Structures are given as structure tokens and as C-alpha cells.
């Protein structure tokens, strides 16, 4: 061998070895990175990644089952591993695409005396539309059961298609159970007891507690009973999550007040969909695009998610943002750490923004965007503003940070301390709309009758007490280093 060629030969071998050791990203890894960086987290993108695996069974045998099919669990781990090493770390919930069974739906349709006027032939039919939409937002082929509830739970005797077409649901279910009262304790208990993994149960109701034999019982006593029964029932079943959605519907007919004579009322009245599922199923409902429209139903006026435990919120610091002031460098690794922080040269203020995905909390925007609902603790007195992320804010360069996020949390403070720790938490409180939608007198149709529900605050307050996991819905801590 010519000795003069030796250095080149050795150099080439060493460089190739270096390349193989450090830069050997496979085709699949490159494709996953591209999908995550471009925010193309769709079923089509996932299918193309799976095709890449199945087309190269020798190369990606560890991602295949013995039968040669894609092992979706391992695929999810592979994607998660790559995503967690990106800047900022990214997560892609591929469960919906990975051969997960469709969720089943069980509808519990309240048939009490005060519910019948919601579905009169001359009305707008908002109640029926809300239920029909709910059923239709589940993928075709999902198992759907319908029950009628009042003093007990009775199976609907017709098919789902017949239910959807039914123009007078209360007429076709006449005679089922005792419509003079609604036993929420029994209903919630039965719903929770009957619920199986992967099931979503929805109670369609006006949420007016009307138990049996209340003659001469004070309203305060009824409210206390309502509050404690809600707490007792929901506290029994751990790991559940409940979403209450408020709608407005045309009401035309007799209203039965707690105290006083029944009277005729024509106008708007609130009604509710109470969605009950295991917490992980509720998370899936919130994230899986196949169930779009279930938790963000059209026509919904307010909603609130009762949850057990503090949620984890995905946050990314925006390195380039119009509101940023001063300088900082995001450290990569566990937690959010801003190093080399410097205040603005003129004002001395440091201002930075975090893009956060608050969607999974399923709280209404009024609650999420009101900074007064947050606690912010820091040495340098950082203040917080919250604004929703709009599509127009996205550019090619910031898409990576804003894609999949719902709100911008902007913090401003004096950059004086050598080290600071900013803690943000969203206080766990019932939203204002619950109090505003609740009344303690329904004897007449005057005042706020059209927008309030008797004892709503007591009922939802009882559920809140049962499911209150902690003092906050989520906590975020940002370490600042000069």
C-alpha cells in the first residue's frame, strides 16, 4: 500500500465513524422531526410514518409486532423520545391513530315535567339539536345507547336513527317512569356505577333538583341536601372527570316552580349536558380530532370541566415575540429555565411570553384570559397578562412554538435579582358563570328567570367539592438566572 495515501484513508475512516456515531439519524427519525417541527400532527402524517416502518421491516423491526404490523405503543414511545429532545420539547398524542377502540356513548335524556316544554314543535329545537349533534360528533360505528331518566333509568325503545329523526321525543317516550320528579342521586349513582372503560355518559337535563315529597321543606334545606348528595355521589367514584355544558333553548309550556303555582312560560331557558367519563377518556375527547364538536359544541353558552387532580399544561417560551423586552436564553432540559437574563436597556424590564395549551383544562375563555384568576409569585414582582392565540399570530418562524397552543402568558417584571423563580397557578374556583346562572327563587318568570337555574350553584358546588383536586388547576414555574 502506498504510504502516502495512508493519512487520507485514516482521516476518511475517522470522519465516517464520527458521522455514524453522532449524526446517524435514520429516515424515520428525520420524518418524525419534520412532522413535529412543521406541526403536521395529523392522521395522514402518522399513516405515512407507519408506511415508512412497514416498507422497511428489516430496519425498523423493533417497531413491528411479530405479525408484521406497526406496534403503535412502541411507535408512540419512539415519537415521544424524539419530541422530548426537540427545542422546545414537543408532544404528539398518537393514541387516536394507533388502533384505539372508538369510545362508546350513553345518553341519559331527562324526561321530567319541566323538560317537556324544551322540545315543542313550534320551538327552535335547540335541546334536540344539541343531543343530535352530540351523537353525530361520535364517529360512525360508535356504540350509542339512549336512556330516558326521571325517577329511574329506562332504555329508549327505538333505534338511534329513529331518535335522531324523532320530532317530538317527549311524545314518543310518554309514560316512561314518573315525570313528576327527578332523583339526581339515583341517576348519577347509576350512571357512574354503569360506566365502563372507554364510555362517555351524557345526562341531558335542566339540572333542577326536584326530589320526591318536598312539601313544607325549606329551600335552604333542599339546597343543602342537593349540595351534599352531589358531593357524596361523585366522591365515591375516583378518577372521573365531568364537563358541564350550558345551552339556551326555546321553552314553551308549563313551568313547575319549587314554591308556588305552576305557570306558563314562553321564552329562553338554560339546559345542560353533563358529560361524565374517566379522566383519560375526557383527555382523549379533548385531544382526539375525531371527537371535534363534542366538548366544543356549537351553540354552547358556557362550560366547565370538573377534574380530580392538577393538570399538566404544555408550555413553550417564545424566543422571538413582539412583546419580548430585554434578553434571555432558554436553557434546554427539565423545567423552564431562562439564563443570561437582562432587562431592557431603557426600562430595565424583562418581558417574555409563554405559549400554553390550556385547552385540555376545558375552562371557558373568560376564566382563562382573566389575569385576576391567576396567582403569580416572584421576587421581582412579575405581572401576568393572558391572551388567546389566534391563527393570524402564526408565522412560519414561530409556528413551531404556537402550533397546538391556545393561550399566551406574558410576564413582565424588573430584572433585578440574580436569581428569581416565577410561579404561575390558575386558582381552582368555580367560574363566575355558575353563580350568575343560579337562582334561589323560581316562583315567577320575572327578572333573570330566562337565564338562571334554581339551585345550580349548590348542585355544581357539591360536584366541585367532590372533585376538587388541589388549590390550582395547573402550576408553571419559570427559573430566571442573570
Amino acid at each position, binding site marked *: 500500500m502506498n504510504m*502516502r495515501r495512508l*493519512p487520507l484513508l*485514516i482521516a476518511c475512516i475517522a470522519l465516517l465513524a464520527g458521522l455514524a456515531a453522532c449524526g446517524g*439519524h435514520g429516515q424515520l427519525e428525520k420524518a418524525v422531526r419534520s412532522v*413535529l*417541527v412543521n406541526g403536521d400532527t395529523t392522521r395522514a402524517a402518522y399513516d405515512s410514518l407507519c408506511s415508512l416502518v412497514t416498507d422497511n421491516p428489516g430496519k425498523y423491526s423493533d417497531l413491528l409486532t411479530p405479525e408484521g404490523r406497526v406496534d403503535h405503543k412502541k411507535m408512540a414511545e419512539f415519537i415521544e423520545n424524539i419530541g422530548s429532545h426537540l*427545542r422546545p420539547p414537543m408532544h404528539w398524542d398518537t393514541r387516536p391513530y394507533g388502533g384505539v377502540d372508538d369510545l362508546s356513548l350513553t345518553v341519559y335524556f331527562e324526561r321530567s315535567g319541566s323538560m317537556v316544554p324544551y322540545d315543542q314543535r313550534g320551538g327552535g329545537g335547540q335541546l334536540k339539536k344539541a343531543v343530535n349533534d352530540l351523537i353525530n360528533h361520535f364517529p360512525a360505528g360508535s356504540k350509542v345507547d339512549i336512556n330516558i331518566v326521571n325517577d329511574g333509568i329506562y332504555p329508549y325503545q327505538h333505534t338511534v336513527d329513529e331518535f335522531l329523526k324523532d320530532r317530538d321525543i317527549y311524545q314518543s317516550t310518554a309514560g316512561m317512569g314518573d315525570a313528576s320528579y327527578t332523583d339526581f342521586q339515583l341517576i348519577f349513582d347509576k350512571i357512574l356505577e354503569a360506566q365502563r372503560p372507554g364510555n362517555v355518559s351524557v345526562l341531558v337535563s335542566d339540572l333542577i333538583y326536584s326530589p320526591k315529597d318536598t312539601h313544607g321543606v325549606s329551600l335552604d334545606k333542599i339546597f343543602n341536601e342537593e349540595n351534599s348528595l352531589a358531593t357524596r355521589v361523585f366522591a365515591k367514584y375516583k378518577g372521573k372527570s365531568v364537563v358541564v355544558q350550558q345551552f339556551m333553548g326555546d321553552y314553551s309550556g308549563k313551568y313547575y316552580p319549587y314554591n308556588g303555582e305552576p305557570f306558563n312560560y314562553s321564552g329562553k331557558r338554560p339546559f345542560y349536558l353533563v358529560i361524565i367519563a374517566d379522566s383519560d377518556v375526557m383527555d382523549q375527547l379533548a385531544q382526539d380530532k375525531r371527537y371535534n364538536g363534542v366538548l366544543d359544541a356549537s351553540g354552547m353558552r358556557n362550560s366547565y370541566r370538573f377534574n380530580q387532580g392538577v393538570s399538566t399544561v404544555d408550555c413553550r417560551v417564545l*424566543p422571538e415575540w413582539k412583546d419580548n423586552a430585554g434578553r434571555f436564553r432558554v436553557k434546554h432540559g427539565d423545567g423552564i429555565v431562562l439564563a443570561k437574563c437582562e432587562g431592557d436597556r431603557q426600562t430595565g424590564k424583562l418581558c417574555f411570553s409563554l405559549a400554553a395549551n390550556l385547552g385540555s383544562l376545558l375552562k371557558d375563555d373568560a376564566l382563562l384570559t382573566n389575569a385576576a384568576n391567576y396567582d403569580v409569585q416572584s421576587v421581582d414582582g412579575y405581572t401576568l397578562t393572558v391572551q388567546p392565540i389566534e391563527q393570524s399570530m402564526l408565522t*412560519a418562524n*414561530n409556528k413551531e412554538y404556537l402550533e397546538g397552543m391556545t393561550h399566551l402568558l406574558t410576564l413582565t417584571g424588573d430584572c433585578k435579582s440574580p436569581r428569581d423563580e416565577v410561579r404561575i397557578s390558575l386558582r381552582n374556583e368555580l367560574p363566575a358563570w355558575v353563580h350568575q346562572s343560579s337562582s334561589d327563587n323560581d316562583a315567577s318568570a320575572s327578572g333573570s328567570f330566562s337565564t338562571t337555574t334554581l339551585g345550580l350553584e349548590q348542585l355544581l358546588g357539591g360536584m366541585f367539592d367532590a372533585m376538587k383536586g388541589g388549590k390550582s388547576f395547573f402550576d408553571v414555574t419559570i427559573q430566571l438566572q442573570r
Partner: protein
Amino acid sequence: MKHLTYLIIGIVVTVVFFILSCSDGFNIWEQLYFNQGYNDKMYNLSMYPVIAAITILVAWGGAAIYYYAINSVKFDRWYHWLAVLGVVAVLAPVVCYIYNDTVFAENGLMYVGESIQFEMQTVLFAALLYIVASFSMRWWSSNCRHTPLPQ
């Protein structure tokens, strides 16, 4: 043995440069120029290893061409060697910039100003690696082994 030691040191320096180019924690490309959004994209799109590989190949390739292809007594003066260094220091950032621009364009990103500033580093790294490569391989050149400094 002394010459072989130079070669080994040169290879080690080059491999260390490559490893530091792939690193997340201490990345050599983020020490002289840092723009969070731009650098994060470079990292996420796995561009650092390719940029490093281009720089290494151009630098070592330039040195190899000078010492083994040109390898002539007509071109054995220090300024001939310096001219090749100049070519390497221009070629490497240009190729890297074209690569950067292509990948960013594929992903719908626009970082013209940042890329130009970033590639100023490539001028420096390519020149340094060319010197390292020169001192690693010059000893076996029949006509240029005394360039740029006498043996």
C-alpha cells in the same frame, strides 16, 4: 512517529469538533452566534451535523487537494497554501448557506439575515480545520511538505 502523532491529533480535533456540533448542551456553533429561534430550528432539523460535515469535508478536502493533487514545486510557497485556505474559507460557508437555505425553504422558514451571520462562523471553523488538516497530512506530500512552514 512524530508525523503520525500530528495526524492522530488532527483527527481527534476534527472528531471532537464534529461531536460538539451534534451536542444539545454545549454546541460549538451556538457559542459565537446565538439567536434562539434560529438555532432551535437548526437543531430540530438536524442541520448542525450536516453543516459540520460540510465544513470538515471542504477543509480536509482542500488540504488533501493541495498536498496530494496540486503537489507541485510551482505551488509550494506559503501564499499558494494561503490561497487554498481562502478558497476553503469561502467555499465552506457558501455550500453551508445553500444547504441551510434549502432546508429552511423546504420547511417554509425564512432566516436570510440570521443564516448570513451564522455562516461567518463557518469561515472561521473552515480556516481552522484547514490548518489542522494541513498539519495532519502535509508530512507525506512529496513536493509541498514544507508548506506553509518549513519542516
